[in-house]
């Protein structure tokens, strides 16, 4: 938690003023019971109505000062806390953006999202509450305690005992119900999961006429949840009545003891009333303080989770040279004895990979799932770093280039195509911010995406929903290929990125790409038809290269290639 305090540095003044004004408010609040005691003892005692009115005006003045301080405090507190939260989120998000695939794979996407949204919110909340209560609550508790101690030391012992008992009870109920709440959450997750499962599986469920038994299972799950909810509900329902009883027992004790003290002349009636008032103030504040502590405990757990993220540094950093491919000729990419294992995995996903590619070549990569195709091509733009061997582009190790220039020259179209909220134009402009509409359409033509754009009323300005959800899989694939083409990178990698396209469109796409000048292309696919016309085909099996050659050569010499081929039997093509 303390580490995150740096995000308050732009809000130093607010951070000091917020608790200070809260403190002022509390101080004035503490004076109220004293004034009332004076009214009773002096005003009523001496039948002095002027004095009473004077004191009444004092009460109003105290209220006005209290209100003003409170508003000022809340303002500064809200400003500092939200400013803190915003800076924290900005930094955290920027930090996460630096992560390489290696880090995001290990952490998982869900976690990262919750840390930026939920966790930072909790911390912000904690800061806000902290400002407001850190001085106020202890001050009121201590102040009221001292005030009552001043009135009568022995009487203040009652308050002390009540505070003690109350803390124990709150702690007991809390600790008991937290575990039970976790159970409830788990069972609710189960109900939620079942609802979702039955929606996605609706066809299968109906095909097997299983509606009834699914309803039965669902009813059991909701019944289970119900029982746990009632159990935890009944326990936390104890909190309010118990607090109420204890507080009032305290008041009763003060009345009883106060009666004795007044009788022997140690106390006045007004003082007994003041004691009762202080007692209620202490308790109200204590409940708030207990809440603050719970909140701070939660916030510090969240802060810890956030710090964990800050502690992770991107494992992939660029070099200093700029990669420029324009004038280069010859072996553009060379893999030498490359081995690569995913972080956390002991076994290598690909090993002993050696090959080189001349500028302008089209390379097909084929192999079954898990054969290492994607792993191999993800190494080229350094989404992952190799474990051994070396990869060179234009004669130099890829680690020597800046990440920016490397990725500018390598356009990788991912298996899972992603579009982002906005419109088609801003999605395509990701490839090159300065591209003209004409250039965008040119790229779209090659990617067979012009139809997609023209089918939408707004053409390039058509809205793209989050995740590109308003486009079909095939449309998304074509648009993301277009986006990569806008980059005009020298190396183009299609990672099974036309899987949702039909044969005809796929083949038109490949023909169009072949016509681009000065481009080296990798086509990764499961379908022989997509790669058979490549200049050379790399056959991967179990992370190793088992053959490199043209379609005809491989068909003749390579049993694995032949097996894949025969499973997809293609008749007289072309």
């Amino acid at each position, binding site marked *: 938690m303390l580490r995150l305090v740096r995000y308050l540095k732009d809000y130093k003044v607010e951070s000091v003023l917020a608790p200070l004004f809260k403190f002022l408010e509390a101080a004035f609040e503490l004076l109220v019971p004293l004034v009332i005691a004076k009214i009773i003892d002096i005003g009523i005692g001496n039948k002095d109505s002027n004095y009473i009115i004077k004191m009444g005006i004092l009460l109003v003045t105290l209220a006005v000062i209290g209100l003003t301080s409170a508003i000022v405090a809340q303002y500064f507190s809200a400003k500092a806390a939200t400013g803190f939260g915003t800076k924290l989120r900005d930094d955290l998000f920027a930090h996460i953006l630096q992560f390489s695939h290696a880090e995001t794979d290990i952490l998982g996407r869900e976690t*990262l999202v919750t840390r930026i949204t939920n966790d930072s919110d909790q911390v912000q909340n904690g800061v806000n509450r902290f400002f407001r209560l850190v001085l106020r609550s202890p001050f009121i508790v201590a102040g009221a305690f001292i005030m009552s101690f001043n009135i009568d030391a022995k009487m203040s012992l009652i308050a002390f005992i009540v505070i003690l008992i109350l803390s124990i009870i709150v702690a007991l109920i809390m600790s008991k119900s937290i575990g039970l709440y976790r159970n409830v959450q788990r069972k609710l997750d189960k109900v939620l999961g079942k609802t979702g499962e039955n929606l996605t599986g609706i066809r*299968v469920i109906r095909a097997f006429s299983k509606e009834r038994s699914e309803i039965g299972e669902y009813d059991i799950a909701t019944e289970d949840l*119900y029982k746990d909810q009632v159990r935890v509900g009944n326990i936390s329902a104890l909190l309010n009545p118990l607090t109420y009883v204890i507080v009032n027992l305290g008041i009763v004790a003060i009345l009883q003891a106060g009666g004795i003290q007044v009788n022997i002349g140690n106390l006045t009636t007004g003082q007994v009333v003041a004691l009762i008032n202080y007692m209620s103030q202490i308790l109200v504040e204590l409940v708030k303080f207990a809440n603050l502590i719970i909140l701070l405990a939660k916030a510090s757990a969240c802060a810890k989770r956030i710090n964990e993220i800050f502690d992770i540094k991107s494992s992939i950093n660029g070099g200093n040279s700029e990669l420029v491919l324009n004038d280069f000729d010859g072996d553009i990419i060379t893999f030498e004895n490359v081995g690569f294992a995913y972080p956390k995995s002991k076994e290598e996903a690909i090993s002993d990979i050696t090959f080189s590619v001349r500028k302008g070549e089209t390379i097909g990569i084929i192999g079954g799932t898990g054969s290492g195709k994607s792993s191999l091509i993800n190494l080229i733009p350094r989404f992952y770093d190799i474990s051994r061997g070396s990869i060179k582009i234009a004669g130099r190790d890829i680690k020597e280039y800046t990440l920016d220039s490397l990725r500018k020259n390598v356009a990788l179209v991912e298996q899972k195509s992603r579009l982002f909220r906005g419109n088609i134009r801003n999605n395509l402009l990701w490839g090159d911010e300065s591209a003209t509409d004409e250039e965008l359409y040119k790229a779209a033509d090659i990617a067979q995406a012009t139809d997609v754009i023209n089918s939408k009323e707004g053409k390039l300005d058509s809205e793209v929903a989050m995740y590109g959800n308003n486009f079909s899989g095939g449309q998304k694939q074509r648009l993301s290929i277009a986006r990569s083409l806008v980059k005009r990178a020298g190396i183009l990698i299609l990672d*099974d990125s036309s899987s949702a396209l039909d*044969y005809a469109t796929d083949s038109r796409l490949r023909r169009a790409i072949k016509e681009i000048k000065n481009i080296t292309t990798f086509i990764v696919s499961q379908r022989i038809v997509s790669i058979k016309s490549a200049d050379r085909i790399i056959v991967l099996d179990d992370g190793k290269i088992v053959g490199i050659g043209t379609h005809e050569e491989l068909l003749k010499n390579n049993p694995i290639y032949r097996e894949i081929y025969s499973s997809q039997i*293609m008749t007289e093509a072309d």
Partner: protein
Amino acid sequence: MNKNKNTLKRILSLLHPYRFRMFVSLILAVVIVLTTLYLPIFTGRAVDTIVSKGNVDFEKLIKIIFTMIIIMCITAVAQWCMTAINNVVAYHMVRDIRNQAFAKIMKLPISYVDSTSHGEIINRVINDVDQFSEGLLMGFAQFFTGILTIILTIIILFKINVYVTLVVLLVTPLAMLVAGLIAKNTYKHFKSQSERRARMTGIVDEMIAGLGTVKNFNMEKEIENEFRESDEALRVASQNAIFISAIAFPATRFVNSLVYAGVAISGALLAITGKMSVGQLTSVLSYATQYTKPFNEISGVVTELQNSFACAARVFALIDEEEILPDKDVNNKIENVDGNVEISHVYFSYDKSKKLIEDLNLDVKAGQRIAIVGPTGSGKSTIINLLMRFYDIDSGSIKIEGKNINDITRKSIRENFGMVLQETWLKNASIRDNIAFGKPDATFEEIEAAAKEAYADSFIKRLPDGYDTIVTEGGENLSAGQRQLLCIARIMLVLPPMLILDEATSSIDTMTEARISKAFDKMMTGRTSFVVAHRLSTIKNADVILVLKDGHIIEQGNHNELMEMKGFYYELNNAV
């Protein structure tokens, strides 16, 4: 307004089974309010027994203290009972509504589930139901006790002293005004905060999911700036929301302080003239400290109740959705199916304003293979939807063994079809239960045999828990191919006379794919099969090939016939 009235009616009818408990709960609420309010009177009386040195009436004091203890115990017990009863009612109702909603989902037309976002439906069944019950019961309890407290406080104050009460009443409109104003503003700011937060979360969600793409295009800086912008907008909204809502407390406390000061002055002045005792003044003051609290609570509750009504309306809308038509005759079933299917003059479209399938005719003899081919999005799955009666045709007829599928029970149609789709849906249950999905009373030997037939047995046995391995929700513990094999095993166990198969296109390794196609072949022998086909071998061996484009069947015939036509099918083939 009318809609609100209807919602209210529905809510009342939902509460009907719990009317006795609700009644008890209301009585308890009255008891709680009464005893809570009554206690300060006793405190006052107790103070009055303590006058000065040597002038304390201990006998009376003890009696009062004793009464106080009894009263507070009654309050506490009543409070606990009321909460417990409310909990039971609330959670019971939640359970009932969820069960109702779920049963509804099971009866909804598939078209509804296809066209509505699942997240939306889940949200209604889970969150809306929760918010509704919580808001309704907790809100109702608070509303009721709040109003009761205000009324009773005023009555008690009147009884103690009329003048002091008038002072309190004078300030009441101010309390209402402040509470109302703050509630209104808070709502506005919180709404804007939650909208902006949703936007910010949206960016985080989308960009972290697409982090690879972001890096691929060197877009880190741009995305960071986009985020900063939306985060800044959120900051402004949050600051306002937090500030305004935080003012609520001091503001009402201020109004309260005014009440308090007014009561203190008028009470003390009255005490001088002897029209009021010091004890009474203490009681009155303690009412004054609590006086504005219910105003604050009520204004909060009103927004909560509104929200809870909105949630209820959404849940009811789901429960009220139109169901599929019931089976015409529950006893009309087809038995001893050989697999003769006759489709004649079928017209169908999802969106009735756009024509889709027109005059489809197909006569399938028992044991024939029908391949359905065409580009993605051409409507291949439509045929499946119609055969299984997931959707009803607009006109024409589909007959199985001469019986119109609209006349027989859906169950008996579906029992006779074995379906393996590309989306491999499995339950979050053990592999054994998943295979036995269509035949829950199958013995383990039968299950194992089915798995062997589907070439799934070998990989299942290699899993750490074998047949008891739980298939996880996202199915991360199984590959796409393995999931498909399990779906095949599921069908192998029941093996109906007709099949509907969807060949997978991608992300299955060659070994598994070979197994799948072997299993498919085994199943298809001697059975009428409709195959959404991607492999040329399947297509070439089919008795009839249906070629779809843009939802229309444009060509129909066997491989040789279609090649001779030199139409779309011919072109598709040449693309290869």
